């Protein structure tokens, strides 16, 4: 079953403003108050009391933990000959004595306070959880402003503290993964995603001095962790977006850009209050959530191309010869495309049912055997509800399935629709034979299937393919959302479109597909077009993507390759910023730029047929890199290396 979907332990959420406004002692006080009011005749009295006691114990634990730091710092300070350093150590001891017991009063305390809580949460949940301080520029700004005004802090000092703070994330990787988990998500990145920009609770622009400072520190450190997200709202100034693009232009693909106004719409659709929606952001890869108030559990990936493969084999997985799906009919006898579509959706429903059932079982196990009382202290309203985060204590509860392979499945269906049923270029039997033989002896058919001039491809603003992507996204959103809330957490069911690295693993276990992809090769990643199939530049890709209704999902990941000269000057960055604006106005959720490097161009020289999507600016015009004469290719590589355009 791991070929069709990965299962994940729950845990995903992000920190909200409560963390930065509340001390552990405040929460202990609240717990005491609630305990005193608990009604002994309440049938859940015992469970509620136990949960509150557990919360109280872990609340004490984090204070004890912090005080150990405080004592140790004093010891070190005593033996420190340098008076300046000694003073600093004494200050640190004082901070660790104050937080997390009390709410932070200064910028420095706020960072330390969060870090204790971060450590508490990640140690408690142990499995990979993507915990993050969330909207850091929003939560920290009042501290920053006050400290600067009162002369306690300088910009430079704030910068240093932020740098130290980020380095803490980098020195705390996710726990090692093994076996299938490793195959599915081969990274030690803990996906702690710091958000900057976006809007505030009252709907106004949130970009402030700290938004810039945070990105500036990231730019200087360039560590693997934490990750960053730039929330872009209509309310945010272009200047900020351009600044963030400048940082992205260094070529690491970070930070990615998110449509915050779109995130707010998604949250509102799910029934969050307007204020909670505005305080939302993105965590993990691209996951929208109400920060500090929602348990949005990612339950695992869903391999759509594999389900198409099983549909084409009438319920059988051709890798093993075992029947693992439904008998939805022999596709060689289908008379039209609609029959194939119906069979595919039937098959999807079948696997979705299994998955949904499994998710509810896992949720019940976690609610019962894996309580997380410490995390529950910080996610509103677990304390008030006397309920654990894993048992539905949070204000909002959601269960997500991560769909994988939109490009591959769209292009595969488009290829069948176009070649088998419309143009009758070849029959379904011929296609099936080619797939069984992994296109050996069918090389010309494969070439044709991989050629956007001959076969409609998603990502080129070609309605013939895009209309299918629209239909897939719409159908899956509706299907998943039609399930009733989970029995324990009352979680609504939602869809994300993101793969982490599982598209590689899913590709490995999926045979040849009708889009001309050979067996074992990665399936398409996120909602990006199939690798190399988008030939018309970013606006055509944006247009294809924006046709789908992402507001009905919780988020979708789009990677776009960009030729480096786009980043050559400020004026170009402005135009790139404007194109992001337009994409977001059209409904895009996320975009991340991969800036093409000189190595990629060299690779393209060696294997031109694998890089037919690469467009570069030659001089007064842009052209496909692989179609250029060798000498000009060399010249462009030199230009890229010298970063001179």
């Amino acid at each position: 079953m791991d070929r069709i979907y990965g299962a994940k332990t729950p845990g995903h959420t992000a920190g909200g403003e409560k963390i930065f406004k509340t001390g552990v002692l405040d929460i202990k006080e609240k717990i005491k108050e609630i305990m005193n009011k608990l009604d002994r005749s309440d049938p859940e009295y015992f469970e509620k009391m136990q949960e509150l006691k557990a919360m109280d114990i872990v609340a004490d634990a984090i204070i004890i933990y912090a005080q150990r730091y405080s004592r140790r710092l004093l010891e070190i300070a005593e033996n420190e000959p340098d008076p300046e350093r000694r003073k600093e150590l004494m200050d640190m001891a004082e901070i660790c004595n104050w937080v997390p017991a009390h709410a932070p009063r200064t910028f420095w305390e706020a960072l330390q306070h969060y870090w204790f809580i971060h450590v508490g949460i990640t140690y408690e949940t142990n499995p990979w959880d993507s915990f993050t301080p969330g909207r850091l520029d929003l939560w920290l700004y009042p501290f920053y402003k006050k400290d600067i005004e009162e002369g306690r802090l300088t910009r430079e000092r704030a910068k240093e503290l932020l740098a130290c703070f980020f380095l803490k994330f980098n020195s705390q990787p996710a726990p090692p993964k093994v076996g299938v988990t490793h195959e599915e998500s081969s990274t030690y990145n803990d996906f702690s995603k710091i958000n900057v920009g976006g809007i505030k609770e009252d709907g106004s622009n949130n970009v402030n001095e700290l938004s810039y400072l945070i990105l500036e520190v990231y730019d200087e450190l360039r560590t693997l962790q934490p990750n960053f997200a730039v929330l872009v709202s209509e309310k945010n100034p272009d200047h900020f977006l351009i600044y963030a693009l400048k940082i992205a232009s260094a070529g690491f693909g970070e930070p990615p850009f998110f449509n915050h106004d779109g995130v707010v719409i998604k949250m509102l659709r799910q029934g969050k209050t307007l204020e909670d929606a505005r305080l939302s952001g993105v965590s993990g890869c691209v996951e929208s959530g109400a920060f500090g108030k929602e348990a949005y559990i990612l339950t695992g990936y869903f391999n759509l191309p594999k389900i198409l493969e099983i549909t084409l084999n009438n319920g059988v997985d051709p890798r093993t010869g075992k029947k693992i799906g439904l008998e939805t009919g022999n596709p060689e006898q289908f008379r039209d495309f609609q029959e194939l579509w119906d069979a595919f959706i039937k098959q999807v429903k079948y696997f979705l049912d299994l998955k949904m059932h499994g998710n509810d079982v896992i949720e019940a196990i976690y609610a019962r055997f894996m309580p997380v009382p410490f995390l529950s202290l910080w996610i509103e309203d677990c304390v008030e509800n006397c309920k654990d985060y894993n048992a539905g204590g949070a204000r909002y509860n959601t269960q997500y399935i991560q769909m994988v392979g939109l490009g591959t499945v769209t292009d595969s269906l488009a290829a069948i629709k176009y070649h088998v049923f419309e143009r009758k270029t070849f029959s379904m039997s011929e296609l099936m034979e080619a797939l069984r033989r992994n296109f050996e002896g069918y090389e010309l058919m494969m070439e044709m299937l991989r050629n956007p001039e001959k076969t409609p491809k998603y990502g080129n603003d070609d309605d013939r393919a895009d209309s299918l992507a629209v239909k897939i996204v719409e159908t899956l959103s509706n299907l998943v959302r039609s399930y009733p809330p989970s029995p324990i957490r009352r979680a609504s069911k939602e869809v994300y479109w993101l793969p982490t690295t599982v598209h590689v693993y899913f590709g490995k276990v999926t045979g040849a597909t009708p889009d001309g992809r050979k067996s074992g090769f990665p399936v398409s990643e996120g909602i990006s077009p199939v690798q190399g199939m988008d030939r018309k530049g970013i606006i055509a890709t944006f247009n294809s993507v924006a046709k789908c209704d992402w507001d009905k999902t919780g988020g979708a990941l789009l990677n776009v390759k960009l030729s480096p000269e786009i980043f050559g000057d400020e004026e170009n960055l402005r135009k790139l910023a404007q194109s992001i604006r337009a994409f977001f106005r059209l409904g895009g959720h996320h975009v991340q730029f991969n800036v093409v490097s000189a190595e990629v161009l060299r690779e393209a020289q060696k294997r031109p047929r694998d890089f037919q999507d690469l467009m570069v600016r030659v001089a007064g015009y842009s052209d496909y890199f692989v179609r250029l004469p060798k000498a000009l290719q060399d010249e462009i590589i030199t230009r890229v290396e010298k970063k001179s355009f």
Partner: protein
Amino acid sequence: MIKGIIFNIQKFAIYDGPGIRTIIFMKGCPLRCIWCQNPEGLMPHPQLCCYERLCIHCHACIQACPKNAIIHNVEDTHIINREICDMCGECVEECPTGALGIIGKEITVKDLIEEIQRDIKYFDSSEGGVTFSGGEPLFQAEFLYETLKECRELGIHTAIETSGYSSQEVIQKISKYVNLFLYDIKIVDEETHRKYTGVSNRLILNNLRSLVLNVRGKDIIIRIPLVPTITDSNQNINNIVGLLVSLKDIEEVHLLPFHDVYEKYKSLGMPYTMTIHEPPNDDRIRYIKDKFVEQGFTVSLWGVK
């Protein structure tokens, strides 16, 4: 409905006019500049082209051709007998990799407008629009006029990249619907112009003079191809500077340094007569740039500020 012939639509163009632009490359040009960087735009009819790099030597094209116009030579690259080829497209249909293609397709004003409109949100956010390039857009005057008119109705900013070689009536007529002219001035001396472009420049210069009287100077940007020894000679540059100064209203100049595009000609089976293959060097470009800057012009390379 009137049809035009185009050979490419390029999106997210950020150098040819303000904002984010979609460029429509129109086919057919009355000039024959020996350095032409877009030879696929010269002929007014569709052409078969061949990208050897993408060929997998399957020979499907040879079998497909009903006229036996394609053979492969000893190195297994294509030899197309263009005398026999009647552009039926069978080989392109059969070529699985796109190594063979037809450059140029007919399109109606309606379809072209539909294509342009797809990017309207990008024009809106960037104050961009559509740029008609070529070839020579004025070569398809009627089609261009109708398309420009539609664009105006839709509020889309329009630019044309032109050699200025057309009758005065045509250029006056379309200028009503053009927001920005990217107007080429290549060589001022009439005989030299004729030698390297195949036509006299009298029409071009007259059109520019009357255009300056009719539209605002800032709506005309002069583009000068810098071809070593041909257009970048001191004398020619001085002549152009003098001409532009005399026109008074012109503010901006784009310099377009020449690149060797031999392979483009080869893929189209067209003769390439340039004997110079090196682009002008940076010092030369800077020298020329300064010449214009001294006279108060805003100057950029390829429209990059």
